């Protein structure tokens, strides 16, 4: 019977040590849209080289926010990318709006990109709280530097995924004159 007493004592102590719980969030809560840059060269003899990922020499990215007082779009103070050489950008979508606009400045050429999206509340846990994920409905761009943009993966969440492809046509030949590519268009295009 003494061994039962010993086991009782050991288990009781073990239980106390195990009772220490950690209430900190260990999940990532960073929801981001990822856009990659591609260069299009339709005249290349090698088919595989006609569309390739490429680094933009210098890009500055800022959000544009509608100011209800001035009734104008103002740049958000915080700059997401500042004169950086990148082949991919991560962009935060606006949780309180269904349209998010970014100003993309390529050296001296400025384009704007509008992303139409829906917002979804996603409760994670008591430790981590809630995040807002998005589903992209539509993407439009101006065509000063960018030629077109295309949705690749509609769901924007914490998982790394290529959501949008931004194309630059080196031959300066407009492949797609319609710069608005909506979800229906992409579905047809993929078929």
């Amino acid at each position, binding site marked *: *019977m003494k061994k*039962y*007493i010993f*086991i*009782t*004592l050991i*288990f*009781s*102590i073990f*239980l*106390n040590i*195990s*009772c220490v*719980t950690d*209430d*900190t*969030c260990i999940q990532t809560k960073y929801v981001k849209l990822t856009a990659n840059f591609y260069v299009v060269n339709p005249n290349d003899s090698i088919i595989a080289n006609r569309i390739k990922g490429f680094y933009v020499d210098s890009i500055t990215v800022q*959000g544009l*926010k509608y100011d209800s007082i001035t009734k104008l779009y103002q740049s*958000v103070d*915080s700059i*997401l990318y500042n004169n950086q050489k990148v082949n991919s950008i991560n962009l*935060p979508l*606006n*949780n*309180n*709006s269904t349209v*998010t606009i970014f100003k993309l400045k390529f050296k001296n050429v400025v384009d704007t990109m509008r992303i139409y999206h829906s917002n979804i*509340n*996603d*409760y994670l*846990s*008591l*430790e*981590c*709280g*809630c*995040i*807002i994920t998005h589903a992209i409905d539509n993407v439009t761009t101006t065509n000063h530097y960018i030629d077109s943009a295309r949705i690749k993966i509609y769901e924007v969440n914490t998982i790394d995924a290529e959501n949008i492809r931004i194309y630059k046509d080196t031959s300066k030949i407009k492949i797609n004159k319609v710069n608005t590519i909506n979800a229906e268009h992409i579905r047809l295009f993929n078929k």
Partner: protein
Amino acid sequence: MRSIFVYLISSILLCLSVSTAMAQKKKQIAIPADSTRWLNGFTVNVDVASLVTSTFINNGIYSSEAGIQLDLKHKFFPTIEVGVAGASKISNENINFKTNGLFERFGVDFNLRKKKPDSKPTNNLFTAGIRLGMSNFSYDVTNVTITDNYWGGSTIINYPTQNISKIWYEFVVGVQVEVINNFYLGWNLRIRNMISKDITGEVSPWYVPGFGKNVGSNYGFNYTLGYHFWPQKKIKKKTSVIIIQKKENQINK
């Protein structure tokens, strides 16, 4: 530290009580364990560990449970446990969680003590068993704040009165010692595994009554006080004669 202190105190009390029981057992006339009757009464157990932790450890969790354990041939112990539990928790992110609910567990314990021919018959048990636990409860998750660090602004979301059913299974190992006639003290350790997993996108509960913190695998500890109703009658004379005969045989050898 407080929880460690309380558990150490309760463990020491348990050890003392078990020692007392042993001392008393020596004085008692042995009770045969090989009961021939299939239904050898039943034991009503109350869990003291949950009451102690609910009272002395102020972590917002309370629990109280009791059970009925049938004694079949002193080998199999079908068990029903019922209880009430709840939790009130404010997370590091200032999210409030609150729940209250009933829970039930059904299962069976098996007596692992092998009766040796020359050992004294005893009603003490060393058991292992399984349980199927279930709870249908409601909970509130409120003050969930989402702050947009880039675009600014924050949103507060409340999820009031969420209803859910959870099912889990448990492996139980424990000891029960008869302190005085028909009055038992015991402890058991439980490993719990959730069957009803959280569904992605649902507002999952932080705490499940009867299971504990809602993680895939959990553990529990019960320290029980029990009374055995309708036990089999003790066969004092026969047992005494057998023991005396055995002692005489040992002396002769």
